[in-house]
């Protein structure tokens, strides 16, 4: 009796272990993304399928990471489908990450520490030099047969963001910049028919359209990170470091940069700029759509965003108002596509990159507001008409510092701006501190 019980115990223990191990085994099979096409879907009868499958070509899979929005991802599935139709031997397995920088950066860092990078990825133009410095990216010049052809066909500005210590580590997938969005209804209700042309006008209009007690503001920024204030900063003539990236002294704390942050501080103090940028307030997109923020500064994706958020809202764009020297400016944004050194099938991955850079793929993505980098597509009739103003703004837009430690420089400016807004330090002293911090990063 006792031994029977023991045997039962042993058997059940083994079963438990077996169940556990099989659970582990099945968990290691890759989870197919919704973008992966399932060939089984059109196999109508079970008897037909085995006769055909041995004949099919050996498939290679290219893994691709991105952080696109909902409408962009849906559109992107069309790009994948078109590529797979033209290359039946390659399957694209795309994985989508949340579009905020944190989540995607996390995934990248985790992948780096566990050496589980995808074959290719779309990443922010400001990240490429960092990952190139880490030594995890594959230089594309000299490796990719059509690199020269593609690099000649794209705008030089976005291309330059891929350059690090003598090599190009990626290709410019898309580009963008920020322009002024002005809520026409709010403007007209106050008797103003035109968006401001100069930053002086901009400040006046912002104050005219503000009513602090009703939480209505003429201007709002999404946060204190550099991207948000960059268009005004550059239009005011601000610079972060010298062109050779040797020093920040006299640049981030130079007179133009100080003037830019002094202007923002004065808007904030007078209640002409929403306090939301320090946290816990109304978001800029919602605030602008609902008429609480007369002006915001944002990118071309806002058109499709407002289509889903406020279908009746009419988005109005204008160039960033001009600074003291009479020129407009803004900040260059966008994404590059890179291949990791660890990519298993480099040939197939390079084919995929070439397709992403093709006019076909770029046209498909342009439909949802993603601006192509191919110079030849600039006046393409298939592109949405509102791209015009962004193309115009891009002529004067400036790139952030292409440096592996850019994200820490960004944090230094971010903190300086917060000290200014909260009145912890005068503008000059705060930017002096930022200059010191950035100088330490340049060494």
């Amino acid at each position, binding site marked *: 009796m*006792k*031994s029977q019980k*023991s045997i039962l*115990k*042993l058997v*059940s*223990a*083994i079963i*438990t*272990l077996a169940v*556990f191990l099989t659970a582990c085994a099945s968990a290691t099979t890759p989870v197919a993304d919704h973008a992966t096409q399932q060939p089984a879907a059109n196999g109508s009868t079970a008897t037909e399928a085995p006769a055909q499958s041995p004949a099919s070509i050996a498939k290679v899979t290219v893994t691709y990471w991105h952080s696109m929005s909902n409408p962009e991802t849906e559109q992107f599935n069309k790009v994948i489908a078109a590529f797979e139709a033209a290359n039946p031997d390659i399957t694209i397995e795309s994985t989508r990450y949340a579009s905020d920088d*944190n989540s995607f*950066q*996390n995934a990248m*860092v985790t992948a*780096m*520490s566990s050496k589980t990078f995808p074959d290719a990825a779309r990443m922010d133009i400001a990240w490429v030099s960092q990952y190139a410095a*880490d*030594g*995890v990216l594959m230089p594309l010049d000299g490796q990719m047969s059509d690199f020269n052809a593609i690099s000649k066909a794209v705008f030089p500005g976005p291309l330059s963001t891929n350059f690090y210590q003598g090599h190009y580590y990626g290709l410019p997938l898309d580009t963008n910049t920020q322009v002024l969005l002005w809520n026409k209804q709010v403007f007209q209700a106050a008797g103003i028919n035109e968006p401001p042309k100069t930053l002086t006008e901009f400040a006046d209009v912002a104050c005219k359209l503000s009513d602090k*007690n009703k*939480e209505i503001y003429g201007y709002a920024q999404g946060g*204190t990170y550099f991207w948000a204030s960059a268009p005004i900063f550059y239009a005011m003539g601000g610079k972060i470091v010298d062109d050779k990236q040797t020093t920040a002294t006299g640049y981030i704390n130079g007179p133009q940069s100080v003037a830019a942050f002094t202007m923002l501080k004065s808007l904030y103090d007078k209640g002409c700029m*929403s*306090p*939301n940028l*320090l*946290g*816990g*307030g*109304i978001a800029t997109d919602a605030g602008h759509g609902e008429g609480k923020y007369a002006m915001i500064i944002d990118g071309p994706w806002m058109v499709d965003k407002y289509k889903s958020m406020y279908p009746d809202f009419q988005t109005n764009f204008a160039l960033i108002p001009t600074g003291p020297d009479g020129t407009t400016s803004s900040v260059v944004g966008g994404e590059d596509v890179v291949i990791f050194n660890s990519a298993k099938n480099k040939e197939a991955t390079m084919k995929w990159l070439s397709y992403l850079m093709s006019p076909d793929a770029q046209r498909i993505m342009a439909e949802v507001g993603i601006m192509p980098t191919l110079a030849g597509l600039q006046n393409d009739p298939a592109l949405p008409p509102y791209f015009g103003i962004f193309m115009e703004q891009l002529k004067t837009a400036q790139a952030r510092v292409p440096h592996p430690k850019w*994200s*820490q420089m960004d*944090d230094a400016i971010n*903190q300086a701006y*917060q*000290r200014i*807004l*909260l009145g*912890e330090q005068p503008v000059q002293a705060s930017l002096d501190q930022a200059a010191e911090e950035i100088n330490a990063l340049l060494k």
Partner: protein
Amino acid sequence: MRAQSKHQLTSQRFFHDVLPTIIFLLPGFGLFFLFMLGPMGYSLRMSFYNWNLANPEMSTWVGFDNYIKALNDPVFRHAVLNTLIYTIITVSVQMVLGLCVAVLLNQQIRGRAFFRVSYYFPVITSWVIVSVLFEYLFNGQVGLVNYVLKDVLHITTTNLRWFIDDRLFFVPMTLLAIWKGVGWTTIIYLAGLQAIPAELYEAATVDGANGWQRFRFITLPLLRTTLVYLLIVLVIGGLNAYVSFFLITNGGNPLDRTHSILTWMYKVTFLKRDFGYGAAISYWLTLFVFLISLLQLKLLQKTADY
């Protein structure tokens, strides 16, 4: 012969008792080593290096530098202070409030099941959802709380910017934790209350003890083990505060003044990419939690006396 039978006996014991035990324990231990001890050992190693993520073999040994760096880091010290204040407020309120609710729900009242479920509901709701909810409630411009304070009760004349001020932000943060946690402490208290023999109360009533005396001399002493358990678990939970801080103040905004220890660890590790320093911060926290738990166990070590 004798030796052989003895050997047989042990091998029999092995197959009947020891082996099944080992096999049963194996999956749990496997997971524990793989996902807990392994990474812990790895990050302990990291904490003594200036860690190079892409090429770990190129990391340089820095000894205890990362640990000393934390002590001299004003942001870390502020984060520790924030975490301690948060823990003291949330733990004490949850323990007192939870006990009150548990004693009330232990009575034969109408709709008892309904109340028990209601109190437990926030517990099973995800931290993310609760954090987003509180972000809306305490929105500095259009939040419900500001509306009530300013437009209904007229306590303030301007909207309070809850998340910009490094003192004011404790209000939403602690309220969130208390609201979300009190249901759980209630359930644990209820379990403890139901383990107290009813005869004790009957005897006390016969002896003429009133309600307060019954609570003070029977309920409270016999709940001692429950109290210790709750205190330890809640303090550990409080010190490990992360999700709500990360989501609501975006980890430290403004000026890195609203960090909990873990959000600062996160920022150092993933945004500043100083993995050695991040690991050292997490080991400071581990040490801290360990010492506090030890102290609590020592201070409250006394067996239930009935």
